[in-house]
């Protein structure tokens, strides 16, 4: 484990990504304590440009709300949705992939057809439809993102399980009469973990982009300030007040970039065979 962190942090991209992510997590956890201004409250006149009044570094939006406070509170929503929806997608994708790979045959075929079906359906359009029908809330957003993002996990896990189940130690476990679930959980899945971790870090990034896109279209949780909502709200007044859309967008860009860098760093650290040259 220690060696693994060393490898990740030796990769320059992975190091930068990890630092940015740590800052974002700190902002999400402690920001609201240090910065108690509610992001919904009017604090100054509307359309206050940034860097004009101390205490309001990024100015105010069309309703006189603090843009900086919005970004701090928005970090919570983005990171939380990204993390929880990825965990939910893993909770569906790993069992489906493991069962399909381990048992194969008809069950495996049926599970993979099911997976392919969800992979074919345009994911963002499906997410829009699901959130619109379930009504926008943090739960419906997380569910919708999880529903559209589990298929790659299932496919990846299936592939790993397919190649691992022919290994000698798995065959040995079968011969000694271990139960299927014991073999899958204790023998196979722990060895299939590293590519899943790489995929999961990239999925958190995609989930953050999806959440911000949904919020941008007005499908965010109406009780929670989020970056996508801020960009969406500032869109109509972009000619008068550029800062309302520019800063939350940068926040999304930087967090997604950090997660992608971590994903690539993890990939290099966990699959040292690949990407040896030119990187």
């Amino acid at each position, binding site marked *: 484990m220690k060696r693994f962190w060393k490898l990740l942090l030796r990769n320059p991209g992975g190091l930068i990504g990890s630092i940015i992510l740590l800052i974002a997590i700190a902002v999400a956890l402690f920001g609201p304590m240090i910065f108690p201004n509610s992001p919904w409250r009017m604090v100054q006149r509307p359309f206050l440009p940034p860097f004009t009044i101390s205490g309001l570094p990024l100015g105010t939006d069309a309703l006189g709300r603090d843009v900086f406070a919005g970004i701090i509170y928005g970090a919570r929503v983005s990171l939380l949705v990204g993390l929880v929806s990825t965990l939910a997608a893993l909770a569906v994708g790993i069992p489906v992939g493991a069962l399909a790979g381990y048992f194969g045959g008809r069950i495996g075929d049926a599970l993979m057809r099911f997976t392919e079906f969800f992979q074919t359906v345009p994911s963002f359009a499906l997410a829009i439809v699901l959130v*619109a029908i379930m009504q926008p809330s943090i739960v419906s957003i997380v569910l919708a993102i999880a529903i559209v993002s589990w298929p790659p996990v299932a496919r990846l896990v299936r592939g790993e399980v397919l190649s691992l189940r022919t290994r000698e130690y798995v065959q040995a476990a079968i011969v000694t009469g271990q139960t299927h679930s014991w073999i899958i959980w204790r023998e196979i899945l722990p060895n299939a973990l590293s590519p899943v971790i790489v995929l999961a870090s990239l999925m958190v990034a995609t989930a953050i982009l999806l959440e911000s896109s949904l919020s941008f279209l007005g499908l965010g949780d109406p009780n929670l300030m989020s970056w996508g909502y801020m960009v969406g709200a500032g869109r109509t007044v972009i000619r008068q007040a550029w800062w309302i859309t520019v800063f939350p967008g940068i926040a999304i860009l930087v967090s997604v970039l950090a997660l992608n860098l971590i994903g690539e760093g993890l990939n290099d650290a966990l699959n040292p065979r690949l990407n040896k040259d030119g990187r």
Partner: protein
Amino acid sequence: MLGFIAQRIMKAIVVLLAIVVLNFFLIRLAPGDPAVVMAGEAGASDQLFVAQLREKFGLDQPLPVQLYRYVKGIATLDLGFSFRQQAPVSQLILERLPATLLLTGTAFAISLLSGVLFGTLAARRAGSWADTAITIMALIFYATPLFWVALMAILLFSVAMDWLPSFGYETVGANYTGFAHVLDVGAHLILPAMTIGLFFMATYTRMTRASMLEVKRLDFVKTARAKGLRDAVIQRRHVLRNALLPVVTLAGLQAGTLVGGAVLTETVFAWPGIGRLMYEALLQRDYNLLLGVFVVCSAMVLAFNLITDLIYRSVDPRIEVAA
């Protein structure tokens, strides 16, 4: 080959049927009794009208009968009626479809060409400053939310520099004809197409670069080099041709993402396509229209996947027909 095509088409039809069935149940999950909602949308909600609607749309029938009627309706291109817009859903979608095809087609062509070009450049000079610059650029565009790129493009090219129009399909009231009309639409197309194109360009650049670096290490490239072939020939005939296979697969799989990009971009640029129509349906909670657009988008993605499958088959003859 014909058997292969027929098999793929059959498979696509089965998936489409499954999507239609999913859609049917999603409509039933939408909040409120559909008849009451429809009556409300039509502006009258007395009991008699609700009962009439229920009968007219077969909502008093058992669920399997409703499902059968729904599937039959879609097979004859009847996607229901939008009470908000007072028009059949299929007509609304058909009116908007050409604009979306123009936008996504242009964006797709730009991104694939430039992505393969940049990816090849980066891979050929792996480790150079050009490679680093291209890799960083691709990383950034890959992480940028589409809707924000769209807004920044408007801010830069329409507000600050006043070079390009920021919304719509053509200049309203100008009534250009002939070539002037083409130029006008083209000017309106640049920003939205570039917005979608940048994200996909980043994807294809990364993919092409990684794939070329991987192919470069393979034995047949060494053989080609040992035979004394010129570097340009090796790169083009041996490396690029093989490296493009995964890129083609990816391009096919990303048709769905392209639809998502169209929804966001058309919303920002007021581009009159089906993405924008989906947003309008969303704002008005017009579920019939929303799900109609969803079915059509899914069908388009399926068709696109089918076409890539066939292209892939012609690029790589090794592909097994039975799969």
